[in-house]
């Protein structure tokens, strides 16, 4: 992340981080000799061209600035399963910043938890604080996401998200996840009706926690169990990826698709709405095996018409960010075993009228009334911004109607846009994915709750993505447009 201290940076550093011309960088360096650059006012007084000033504002820290920026979050050494570890938070701050607390929220295979660490004077001086995870906070092999907040005196806050792989200490592991690029973790794989058959696709990740590479034969045995591994065996077989090796402190990934015709054991279990456990056992070249498991099941699903409003004023990057945000939304629901299909829609700028930027509930309802998409899908309108209201989303009703007419037939969300330090228009993917999920949750019948970490908190943040089984899952699956494979 580009960031520059204007009080001390060389003209070259200013030009590079701020992406401004050498002439402007020199002007800043000269200007600060005449008048210290303490506040935006001082920067404004330099008389820079607006575009150049705007670029500098995005990356510059000033002398009277109490803002904080997290520049990186990284474990200084690989995180090994079942071992204490450290996550280093590197940061920068304006001349009057006083970092006080680093707070790391960990999302992993189990329930999220938080580890906090006070920032000492020595940490502030070196611009980094180590958050230590002790024997009570070790993690199993697999992916772990760290959402880190750094708080300062006066209320400054900076946020940063990073996902790390926890390497196996034993030293090899196999982890399985649903086969789609938008999901990771240990939740269920999905049995999908594909013509007459059911198909089940999974990703296989082999992680190596050793300091030397491990050779694998590539051959594997698969088993579908009813009632967990060691219960009743539904079906089994073998396959091969072809031989491969896993680098030291590295990982290897592959995928498997199972096709189950009518009459097969797996088909019958899916058709009976029963869940199963898939076990994959892989062979090391030098002998020995390693295995992983995942639950699989059919899922309820619904449909969304994701509609970009004022379409011609979206950049290609913003369109991609919206796609990624909707994958985040899907991942939130698939964690609770409900999935959705997406029909991507748009309203041209010429037809959007004032709906590109809306500023009242009434205007949002006008949008629901005047526009709709096809099919038994919920209309989700993503607008350029919602301004002057204090809210950033709205659902037509709880639950919403199973029709496309009237002033309640849809949800709207601000696209959560910003311009990054490189001058590129972006959407806050994690937040927007959560926001769409929250408003769609209302439409599916969910009211606000007070359960920590829940998607339906009145002010849920990007890490509040949990949906409970009872009553939320049970409410969702009764929505009129819900279907099952």
């Amino acid at each position, binding site marked *: 992340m580009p960031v520059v201290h204007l009080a001390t940076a060389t003209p070259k550093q200013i030009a590079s981080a701020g992406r401004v011309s050498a002439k402007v960088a020199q002007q800043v360096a000269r200007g600060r000799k005449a008048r210290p650059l303490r506040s935006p006012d001082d920067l404004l007084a330099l008389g820079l061209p607006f575009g150049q000033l705007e670029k500098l504002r995005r990356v510059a820290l000033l002398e009277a600035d109490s*803002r904080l920026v997290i520049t990186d979050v990284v474990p200084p050494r690989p995180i090994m399963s079942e071992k204490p570890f450290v996550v280093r938070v590197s940061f920068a701050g304006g001349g009057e910043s006083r970092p006080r607390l680093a707070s790391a929220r960990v999302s992993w295979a189990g329930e999220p938890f938080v580890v906090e660490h006070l920032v000492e004077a020595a940490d502030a001086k070196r611009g980094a604080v180590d958050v230590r995870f002790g024997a009570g906070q070790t993690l199993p092999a697999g992916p772990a996401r760290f959402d880190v907040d750094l708080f300062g005196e006066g209320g400054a806050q900076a946020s940063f998200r990073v996902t790390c792989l926890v390497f196996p200490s034993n030293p090899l592991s196999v982890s399985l996840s649903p086969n789609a690029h938008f999901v990771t973790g240990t939740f269920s794989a999905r049995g999908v009706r594909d013509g007459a058959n059911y198909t089940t696709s999974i990703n296989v990740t082999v992680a190596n926690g050793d300091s030397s590479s491990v050779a694998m034969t590539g051959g594997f045995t698969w088993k579908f169990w009813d009632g967990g591994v060691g219960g009743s065996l539904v079906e089994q077989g073998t396959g091969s990826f072809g031989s491969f090796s896993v680098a030291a402190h590295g990982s290897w990934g592959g995928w498997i698709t199972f096709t189950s015709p009518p009459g097969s054991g797996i088909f019958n279990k899916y058709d009976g709405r029963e869940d199963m456990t898939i076990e994959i056992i892989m062979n090391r070249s030098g002998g020995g095996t390693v295995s992983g498991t995942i639950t699989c099941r059919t899922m309820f699903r619904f449909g969304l018409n994701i509609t970009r409003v004022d379409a011609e004023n979206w950049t290609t990057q913003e369109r991609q960010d919206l796609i990624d945000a909707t994958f985040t939304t899907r991942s939130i629901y698939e964690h609770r075993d409900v999935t959705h299909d997406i029909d991507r829609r748009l309203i041209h700028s010429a037809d959007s009228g004032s709906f590109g930027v809306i500023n009242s509930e009434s205007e949002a309802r006008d949008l629901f009334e005047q526009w709709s998409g096809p099919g038994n899908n919920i209309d989700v309108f993503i607008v*350029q911004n919602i301004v002057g209201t204090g809210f950033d989303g709205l659902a037509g009703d709880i639950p919403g109607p199973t029709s496309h007419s009237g002033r309640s037939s849809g949800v709207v969300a601000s696209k959560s846009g910003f311009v990054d330090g490189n001058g590129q228009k972006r959407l806050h993917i994690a*937040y927007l994915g959560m926001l769409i999920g929250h408003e769609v949750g209302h439409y599916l019948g969910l009211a606000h709750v007070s359960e920590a970490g829940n998607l339906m908190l009145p002010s849920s943040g990007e890490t509040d993505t949990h949906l409970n089984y009872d009553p939320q899952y049970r409410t969702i699956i009764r929505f009129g447009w819900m279907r099952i494979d």
Partner: protein
Amino acid sequence: MPERPEDGFKLNEPAPRIRGGATRKSVRVPRRELPQVAQRERLNAILLAHDPDVAEENRAKLKEADFAMLRQVAQEGALAGTPPALRQNAIALLAERPTPDNLDVLTHLARTGDDLYVRGAALAALGKTGLRLAAPILAEGLAARDPIEAASAEHGVVALGKALGEGGLRAAFHGEKRKAVLDRLERAIQRIEPRGERAAKPRATAGDA
């Protein structure tokens, strides 16, 4: 245990098998040692209102002492990595109390905010103050090259018009010569009093290739 209603299939909530169990103990620093962190967390919950009714309730939770921190949040910038909604809702709330300090921040952000969304939020907020002194800043917003920023300014002008009336609004923009600004001003004036126009029938969104 309450009886579960019939779903038509088995409810087997999957539970990952994890060595040491699926929970880990959180290690938190008590907030009594960090009152400003506690205040910031409280403000975050107020600012991240997703729905109109919540926004309304949250407004009532604001205390006078919160506004200094609200100004801080409003000026945080994308560098901080926090959601844009946090900054933009802080900006909107500053307009609720148009003190000199709050107006200073809104004016700065409307003129030199670090991106078009921040400037747009500040322009809309300035209009909501209903203060005539917002007019020249809104005029610059109406002239913005970016259509989203200009549209936000137009919302600000509509809000200002509701406070000043059409005559007052025209007087506030007296002397304005730029065609783009005047065109948007006229459009805003049309929107001060909704004419109750509705589309004859719902229109269909287009496929997004």
